[in-house]
């Protein structure tokens, strides 16, 4: 898998600078063409074969869209299209194809499927101009890792004229800087600290493993959301608003809420194209009718939901990869949500006994901690390369406390942990403010300009110094 120009490279900074200047210098009507050319160049950097693969996928889904719209056999057309794309995804997920798997395939294929379904549902007309359709699929900020975009939502923005908006660009720069901080300082450094543990699972025990699990949760979040910040920031600089993909997930009070705040666009995609269709399927409709006859309201609501959730989480697991680790991870997440759904009446009854206590800050904090721990445990299935490693780590986690070994582990990585300390505090403040729906940039705009520029420079200085001399690793979600 060739990756020449990730968001963290100097090559990308130059590419973005050139695209940015050209985009605003050319006549407004031609802006979308500049973007299309930029997309082509950007994706071409991942390799010629990958670029041709993307081109082929775009062409097939473009033609499928037109066919679905024009044919009288819409059901057949969409069925064939879906089978084609699912088969493509399935084949490329096979071990023998892993080395030729084009970068971002899992993301842009779902994007193509979503578009075809929308055409089938007649919520959007099929795009007649193949170049414009190609612009939507290959838009460089989202082609590699998302966020998944709704065609209706994005097409208006992609093809319309964008005059230069100073405020928007400044906010875009801030998002890019935030993303760089998350990725280069926090995620990459944590990776450097914890990778050895996952490579030698038998050597670590108890509290060291727990610490590593927590650090991994932070790493994955900062890696993935850092990418999203950079994607959204770059898009914003070009006058385009992409969907937010993260919304302070680690402050969620339940697993279901966590998944509404984590990889939001993936959740929405599966909700629209899997969950609701399964809910409306013949099987679920029949169950609902049967339960209604038996006057079983609980079963009527819960059983179809359980079936839909099982389908969703199994498919998400397979989307992550044909690997027991991913499947078990997604089943674990799904299981927690299903159990919560099944026990909801019981929870409601308990909460009604003392509503004030149930809605107190203390209980909210406990729920947040519980959810965070569940997520941290779930990643024990997600991060290790094999199920065997997951089992070893799980067994060693409870075999001994190992306080001194943990202290020693911290000591050996103290420089790296020192470096991420301040960025983590900054991240926590930014996240808490975001949770409270306070826009940091809006606040900062009201400050004295001198102070503001000192903060910008100090931030960039911190970013540059703490990045150290480590080469940036690839993004965690590139493997999908």
């Amino acid at each position, binding site marked *: 898998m060739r990756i020449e120009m990730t968001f963290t490279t100097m090559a990308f900074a130059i590419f973005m600078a050139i695209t940015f200047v050209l985009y605003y210098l050319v006549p407004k009507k031609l802006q979308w063409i500049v973007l299309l050319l930029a997309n082509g160049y950007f994706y071409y950097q991942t390799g010629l074969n990958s670029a041709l693969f993307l081109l082929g996928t775009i062409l097939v889904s473009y033609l499928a869209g037109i066919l679905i719209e024009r044919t009288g056999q819409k059901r057949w057309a969409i069925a064939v299209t879906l089978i084609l794309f699912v088969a493509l995804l399935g084949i490329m997920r096979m071990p023998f194809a892993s080395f030729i798997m084009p970068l971002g395939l899992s993301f842009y294929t779902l994007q193509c499927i979503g578009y075809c379904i929308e055409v089938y549902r007649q919520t959007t007309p099929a795009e007649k101009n193949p170049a414009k359709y190609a612009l939507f699929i290959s838009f460089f900020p989202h082609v590699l890792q998302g966020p998944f975009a709704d065609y209706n939502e994005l097409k208006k923005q992609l093809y319309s004229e964008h005059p230069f908006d*100073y405020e928007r*660009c400044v906010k875009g720069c801030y998002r890019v800087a935030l993303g760089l901080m998350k990725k280069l300082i926090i995620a990459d450094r944590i990776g450097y600290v914890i990778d050895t543990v996952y490579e030698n699972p038998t050597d670590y025990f108890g509290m060291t493993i727990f610490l590593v699990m927590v650090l991994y949760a932070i790493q994955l979040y900062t890696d993935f959301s850092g990418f999203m910040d950079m994607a959204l920031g770059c898009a914003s600089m070009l006058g385009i608003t992409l969907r937010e993909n993260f919304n302070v997930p680690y402050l969620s009070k339940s697993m279901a809420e966590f998944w509404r705040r984590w990889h939001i666009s993936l959740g929405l995609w599966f909700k629209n194209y899997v969950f609701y269709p399964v809910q409306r399927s013949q099987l679920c409709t029949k169950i609902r009718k049967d339960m209604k006859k038996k006057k079983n309201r609980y079963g009527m609501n819960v059983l179809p939901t359980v079936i839909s959730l099982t389908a969703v989480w199994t498919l998400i697991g397979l989307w992550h990869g044909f690997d027991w680790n991913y499947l078990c991870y997604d089943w674990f997440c799904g299981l927690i949500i299903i159990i919560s759904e099944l026990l909801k009446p019981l929870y409601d009854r308990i909460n009604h006994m003392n509503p004030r206590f149930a809605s107190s800050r203390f209980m909210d904090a406990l729920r947040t901690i519980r959810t965070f721990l569940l997520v941290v445990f779930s990643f024990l299935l997600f991060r290790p390369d094999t199920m065997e490693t997951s089992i070893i780590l799980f067994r060693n986690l409870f075999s001994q406390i190992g306080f001194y070994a943990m*202290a020693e582990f911290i000591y050996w990585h103290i*420089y790296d942990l*020192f470096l991420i300390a301040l960025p983590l505090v900054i991240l926590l403040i930014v996240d808490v403010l975001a949770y409270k729906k306070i826009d940091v940039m809006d606040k900062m705009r009201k400050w004295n300009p001198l102070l503001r520029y000192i903060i910008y420079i100090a931030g960039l200085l911190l970013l*540059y110094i703490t990045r150290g001399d480590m080469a940036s690793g690839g993004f965690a979600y590139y493997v999908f």
Partner: protein
Amino acid sequence: MKKLFLFIVKLILVMVLTIGAYQLTFWYLWDAQAGPDAYENAYQKALLLQYHALESEERSPEVIVFGSSYVPFGIDTKVMEEELGRPVQILGVEASIGIPFLVDVLYDTAKPGDTIVYMLGKSNWYNEDFMVISAALESDKTLLHQYWDSRDDTLLGYQNKMIWRKLYTLTCGRMIESIRSDISKKEQVYELSSFDENGNMIVNRQGTLISTDVSPSDTLNFSDMEVETLDMLNEFYDWCEDNDITFVIAYSMYIDGSLVETEESLAVYHEQMTDYMNADILLTPQDYFLPVDDFYNHSCHLNSEGARAYSAILGEALNQYLDEKSDTE
């Protein structure tokens, strides 16, 4: 268009000011005399003491023992001086200083009539750690710049690391070290005050902090040796020959019973080393085996008693070697 131009100008200005602030930070923390010395009591600073002792114009020809951390932990200069009747100076504090740097120091400071002993252990670091040496030399700016100048390209790559390591040391390094020391209950030896004015480790290291349950698990193979270091030492030997300096090699200490190698394979190792190295090698690896109770906090770090024992072995072997050499001459 005007706004776009303004935005670009501001962006470039912020970048330029950031680069300026970065250079200023580096200058203040490292380059200028004004910068605070965060490594005031750092263990690595003993290297500077050793350097100054060696460069002294007045010093008489002496025995210099150099190598990695097993040198300060393993050499008791008083014991060796008694054995040899000559002053003994050590050079080396830790493996990551790198042997090339130490050899460079010796090229600058060795005098005719000196006898130099290299302690050949398992860690024969060829690539020195730029950061460690910089920390050791920080208070001697001339030497520090001399070192940086000799490695121009490297400084750029290390600048960031040096800034944040120094920030760490200035802000919380001492506190963390003391917590670590408290938790591990280890005697704190990793500081400058553990050394005398010539850079000899004088802190009393009693007992052993490593497991005394010894089983054959360590290995000693010729193939594990860094060839670059060995070649460089051969080159150094030739220079010593040309400058009336005696250069010999001695094996470092090993925990008795910790090596998986048999007598035969150790003999092969010794033979391979003897064949490869231009310098003579004093004794065999087995002659430097010491009981585990003589080791302090690492399988190459001796406690005070162990250092006396090792120095006596080395001193006697060296004495005999020098006597034989003078007889031959």
